[in-house]
């Protein structure tokens, strides 16, 4: 068995882009705007057309050879390596953090010419924040905490806000909040805006990702409008799902959210990040998401400061694909150290 724990990288061995994955590295955070209801109501999303667009995407954007290897490595750099289980322990989280530091076998990374590759962040529940911060010390990898009564978001508002503050206190640099789906389903956009504003305020310097739980919003039009409202209220990222809904990240939902991000950027000049989460488990899927972001937002969004994958098993498949790229032979899961 290969050791799962690796020594922290020194600053010198880490390429500049992976030295830190804090969001909004090169740009000001999204301060939000006033709630613009005319804008929100004008947002449309035609489901059939959106489905056709994403269905034709894999046929239009094929990434092969060295390009595929580079794109998959880029996907790794954008992973929020996640464990959100009731049986999480400090040791389990430490193992995951070790994997975050060395997500792909060093010999493979050496051959790819990407020796310092790390994931985007480690994502845990509040109780696991402190162990994760300890385990990641010196790596530059931020800890993200799911919060606000994750996944349902139905605990009392003061407790949800207190939860954010506690996680920030414990060292979380990113907070993944869940919105109240009932505000969307009831069309109470003002309430959603206020809720998001208060979460953002509670985060302070930590960056906030707004989980829309798109599988529970009823329509793509609601997804588009909820995306806009959360961005107006100051979200740094918008994120599809908790991973706990029956339908999580999909390409149609992603297209709607990416278009909302583009619209928001064009109107306000603020770049908001995107995080699809749940259900992305294959390297091929990751390539489709990257291609979609590439085409809809551009290469500027293909970095961990504006793109994350919320995933636990995706990394395993990418590792095998990367080994195949350097060896020419198909790989197996047990060739790669687990996290």
């Amino acid at each position, binding site marked *: 068995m290969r050791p799962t724990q690796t020594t922290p990288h020194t600053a010198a061995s880490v390429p500049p882009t992976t030295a830190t994955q804090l969001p909004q590295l090169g740009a000001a955070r999204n301060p939000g705007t006033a709630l613009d209801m005319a804008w929100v109501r004008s947002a*449309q999303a035609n489901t059939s057309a959106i489905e056709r667009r994403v269905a034709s995407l894999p046929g239009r954007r094929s990434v092969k050879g060295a390009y595929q290897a580079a794109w998959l490595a880029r996907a790794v750099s954008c992973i929020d390596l996640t464990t959100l289980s009731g049986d999480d322990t400090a040791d389990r989280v430490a193992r995951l953090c070790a994997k975050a530091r060395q997500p792909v076998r060093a010999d493979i990374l050496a051959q790819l010419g990407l020796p310092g590759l790390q994931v985007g962040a480690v994502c845990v529940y509040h109780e696991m924040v402190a162990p994760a911060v300890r385990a990641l010390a010196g790596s530059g990898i931020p800890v993200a905490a799911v919060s606000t009564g994750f996944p349902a978001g139905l605990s009392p508002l003061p407790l949800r806000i207190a939860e954010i503050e506690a996680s920030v206190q414990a060292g979380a640099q990113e907070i993944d909040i869940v919105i109240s789906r009932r505000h969307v389903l009831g069309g109470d956009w003002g309430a959603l805006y206020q809720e998001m504003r208060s979460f953002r305020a509670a985060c302070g310097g930590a960056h906030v990702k707004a989980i829309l739980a798109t599988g529970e919003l009823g329509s793509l039009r609601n997804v588009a409008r909820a995306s806009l409202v959360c961005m107006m209220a100051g979200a740094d990222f918008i994120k599809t799902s908790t991973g706990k809904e029956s339908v999580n990240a999909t390409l149609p939902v992603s297209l709607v959210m990416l278009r909302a991000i583009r619209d928001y950027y064009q109107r306000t000049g603020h770049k908001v990040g995107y995080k699809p989460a749940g259900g992305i488990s294959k390297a091929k899927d990751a390539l489709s998401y990257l291609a979609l972001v590439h085409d809809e937002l551009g290469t500027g969004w293909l970095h961990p400061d504006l793109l994350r994958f919320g995933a636990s098993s995706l990394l395993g498949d990418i590792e095998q694909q990367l080994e195949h790229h350097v060896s020419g032979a198909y790989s197996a899961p047990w060739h790669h150290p687990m996290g």
Partner: protein
Amino acid sequence: MRISEIFETMALGPAPESAAEAQAWLQRHSAGFGHFINGRFTPAQPAFDSTNPATGARLARLSHAGQPEIDAAVAAAGRAQRRWAALGGHGRARYLYALARMVQKHARLFAVLEALDNGKPLRETRDIDIPLVHRHFYHHAGHAQLLEAHFPGQGPLGVCAQIIPWNFPLLMLAWKLAPALAAGNCVVLKPAEQTSLTALLFAQICHEVGLPRGVVNIITGDGETGAALAAHPGVQKVAFTGSTDVGRAIRRATAGQGKALTLELGGKSAYIVCEDADIDSAVEGLVDAIWMNQGQVCCAGARLLVQEGIAETFLARLRARMAKLRLGDPLDKCIDIGAIVSAQQAQRIAQMLATAPEGSVYQPAQPSLPEGGHFVPPTLVCNLPQAHPLMQEEIFGPVLVACSFRTHAEAIELANNTRYGLAATIWSENINLALGLAPQLVAGVVWINCTNMFDAAAPFGGLRDSGFGREGGPEGMAAYLAPVAKGQPAKPVPAFGPRQGATPASAGLPAIDQTQKLYIGGKQARPDSGYSQPVYGAKGQLLGHAPQANRKDLRNAVQAAQAARGWASSSGHARAQVLYYLAENLQSRADALAHALNDMTGRRDGMAEVDTSLERLFTYAAWADKYDGRVANVPLRGLALALRGPVGVIGALCPDDLPLLGLISVLGPALAMGNRAVVVASQPFPLVAGPVYQLLETSDIPPGVANILTGQHAELAPHMARHAGIDAIWGFSNTNLSADIEAASADTLKRTWVNNGRNPDWFGPAGAGRAFLDAATEVKTVWVPYGE
């Protein structure tokens, strides 16, 4: 490039599809291709090359079919046809099924070969063209199987000459061959000279599945070959897809030859974006509308009409999207736009674009492109007056012209302000709006919140200069079938002359003179010429005088008919009531009319004519609310509605021998289906017009819906055929004017239905057959995807 660099830039790289298999197939035929005639390839006599538009490299050497080859191919098809028809629907279904399977088995080879030969991206040939091809053969294997049940009394036409274009080479082959073969016809097909290769590979497959010799013949050559094939006397049907000019030439060349004809021609289709649309999806739709196949698509959404309130943001987003489109090697699986089919076509596009004023053209900057290829970047042209040729003419390239509209009514006006009528697209999230606009668009296909959707079960075809006939579904099958009963010779019926003393001098007071007039716009009108013609009975007695209509009377009648457009949107129920009422009134005058008819014709079947006319009116009153469209069963979450609507204004020359029944047999279906009619009554027996218009006047028929002229058929027919305001012309005159009508209709590409010297038995069921309802309706396919 190093992986670490790509990791930073996140550039897209080449993703080439191998052409090895296709090149090996071409290599095996490096001596050149012959024609596929009578089940085998003729020896190659290379006369011209097929080249790769992306590189200019020669792919293959092809033979040019001259008259001897055309004769051989038509003769082979003629010899094979009877046995092929006799094989029955099930037998033909087996062959079509085998063809579908074989296309599927060789799907990638076809896709790569098509991309090499045509220059379109492999993504399209692989994901669109070839899947639609085997879908088409599967679907039509089913039509063969069900033919006897679905089309009783119908049979094949014989030998079909099929001439197809270069933009969808194998797909157009499938659209042409599959229904023709399913119906029991045999075929001589000529692919475009630029793109013959997949047709030749298909010929090989026909051989492999053991298709009987002569059932499919494929000959290669240029427009000269096509023209000679279409004109060949051994051909009973011509099906052409291509340019409007060539379509016109074929119409003229085949006039009077008794050939069935369908034409799928050009277009300048509108793409309407309303302010409540999903703007990003509508922008993306344009990628499929005008940049699919480099815009070389007859139904391409080439005219963008965007509502003023969103025009600025829409165009900004569109330009941003255009900048993301990747142009390049068609075999690269990571490009959006390939090569223009030929240097000639690329030059034509460039020449047209050169007429655009400074500053009106946007083309995103392009990285380096393959050398030797013909590439045109995606192009947007704004701020041109409607009269500019770029706004009016089909460019057949990746060029979108844009303008804005204020109201939905204005959008419809702009969309319909064109000679073409192929397709249209509407984007709106409001179902009331979208479904309300669709019927107002003059187009054979309307796509709502989607574009360029095709399926074997959904009829496709155009109006106006975009041609006539439908392909796909049972409507497309009908274009390859005809009633087995061939009707009876329509012999000329001379008018009776005067005979001395035949009109006895009346004792006592003379009868009050009755002046018959023309019936135009609900009014009795004197003829423009000021001339009337005496009309005599069989015994030479003077029966009265009939006005002689000329082209100005025709013009006035058409004007009146056009103004009566409310009839088209009246309900079937309302039209039925009017026709029943007409029957009621006819009955009350039955005796007098029967006597008058006997006087006119010198026969004794006047009462039979009246009775059958009554029944006929009942038949069409019954049909008025029953000749429905259908929901085509297409693979889509949504509806593809094949709606049946009126043709518009129908001009008709009535049969001569049965003055009343003939007139009613023409007027009945036209009016029942919502058309307005301008009919010329029986030439020898024009005095039927008076009693009939008196009936019309008393039967609540709105003014202008039915207009009746009397006069010389031969004089009026060409004016009717050339009148741009008449949408279809029916020629049932016993004077055989079929050739004149068809030739004169070429300018307006009017739908013609001529008798070629044979009329149906007007007293029998054929006198009120489905053919009348089909001719009185146009099919419009409206695609409505749905789902939140």
